[in-house]
């Protein structure tokens, strides 16, 4: 797999068309969110235990983990499309396990910009002590596993549905929900964010661990990451049995 990833990185370098424009667009996007939260907490002060520094830390974790997933394993959000277009064929023709190959197959340099933004935000606003940095790094990696696995799972729904809209909706929903303090939600919504759509584990939980390390919560995060990781593997592998290699009539 490292060879695949290295080759994918070479391809990303070769394909730099509108690279800097896209990086600029991405940076503007991230900065606008930072501005929003600064303005919000300027008026609100604190909200259910959340203040400006805590939200910026959450945002740092989200952009780091999200940038990692969408940058290094860029195909994670395209699994559904690959399934409906017959894009798994190429992986199946090689003596490799298809899911890792597909994930390593595409590197998106623009989203790596998100990753760099996240690192910068943590350095500036995250109060980086050695302990906090360590938790932030491990937490962001776990967050990336949760996010990537979730994307693979919703994408794999295309094995059943033959269409990829559900995957798109899932992608936008989890990114949106992860970027808000999870405690503004109540009841059922909050429960969903800790389970089926694990937005809480993509940003809020790792951010909380950086501020208040709690071994039990850390264990929960790692368990969720492992569970979703295995879930993604299982769902994709089972779904592969129903793969139709884009035989046109499946959508007739």
């Amino acid at each position, binding site marked *: 797999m490292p060879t695949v990833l290295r080759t994918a990185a070479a391809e990303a370098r070769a394909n730099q068309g509108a690279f800097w424009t896209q990086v600029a667009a991405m940076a*503007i996007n991230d900065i*606008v969110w930072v501005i*929003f939260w600064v*303005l919000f907490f300027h*008026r609100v*002060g604190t909200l*259910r235990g959340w203040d400006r520094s805590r939200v910026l830390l959450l945002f740092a974790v989200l952009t780091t983990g999200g940038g990692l997933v969408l940058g290094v394993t860029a195909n994670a959000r395209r699994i559904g499309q690959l399934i409906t277009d017959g894009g798994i064929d190429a992986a199946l023709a090689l003596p490799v396990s298809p899911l890792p190959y597909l994930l390593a197959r595409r590197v998106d340099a623009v989203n790596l910009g998100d990753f760099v933004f996240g690192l910068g935000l943590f350095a500036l606003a995250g109060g980086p002590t050695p302990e906090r940095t360590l938790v932030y790094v491990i937490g962001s990696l776990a967050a990336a596993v949760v996010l990537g696995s979730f994307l693979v799972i919703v994408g794999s729904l295309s094995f059943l549905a033959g269409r990829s809209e559900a995957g798109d*909706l899932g992608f936008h929903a989890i990114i949106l929900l992860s970027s808000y303090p999870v405690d*503004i939600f109540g009841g059922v919504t909050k429960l969903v964010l800790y389970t089926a759509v694990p937005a809480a584990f993509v940003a809020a939980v790792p951010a909380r661990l950086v501020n208040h390390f709690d071994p039990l919560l850390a264990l929960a995060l790692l368990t969720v990451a492992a569970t979703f990781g295995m879930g993604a593997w299982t769902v994709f592998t089972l779904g592969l049995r129903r793969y139709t290699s884009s035989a046109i009539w499946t959508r007739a």
Partner: protein
Amino acid sequence: MREPWPLVALRSSAMRALRDPGPLAVSLGFYAIVATVLATLWRIAATAHGGAIVGYSSAQFVWYIYTSEAAVSALNPRQIELTGDDIASGAVAVELLRPASVVGMRIASELGRSLPRLFACIATGAVLATLSAGAAPRPAAALLAVPSLVLAVACNLAAQHAFAGAAFWIRDARSTWFLYQKLVFILGGMLMPLQVLPGWLHALAGALPFMAMAYAPARLASGHLDPQLLVVQLAWLAVLAGAAAAVFGAGERRLQVVGG
């Protein structure tokens, strides 16, 4: 009797959008999720702070956000890119052959395409806001928000054409367009009422056209009966449409001189 062409363009685009309800449903779904999350944030923030922030109560925030999000969600989020790409690729040059204003035609048909989306968002938003915060704080003002939303979308489209016209001169103008959208988010009051901004920024935003694209209808829907907001919107629409026409006119002359 001959029908005026902008009306025909508007109507046929609206019909086309209605004929394929798939994308309409998807964008409606996104609108519902995005607006609900943001409205929830402001609602509990206001509740937690003695019931109001910068003069807006929880209920007023809810109605404000569902309206401001509707004003922006009615447009294809990539509309400005598409317009800019049409200019960059020379597709606009072909339209110059038509015996009608290129900008007028484009704005009219984009408005037509957006209206079904806008009214679907208004209906959904009204239901969700009522469920979350009760009836509109001041029904008369909320009714005025409907024409104000149409004006907001028209202003946004006109401004997008003026901005996208940069592509007549700049080779890769994409980041300009992206920046434009983000200005609507913050200075246009999509993410929050302009009163939330610090004093000087609030004053600046009030003097810029972005406030006509989200803030104006949302302010009305949140129960502030300020009919003069509609006048301000009309004035901005005239200015922005004029600017778009000027940019396209200049671009057109440039095309004739330099070639596409």
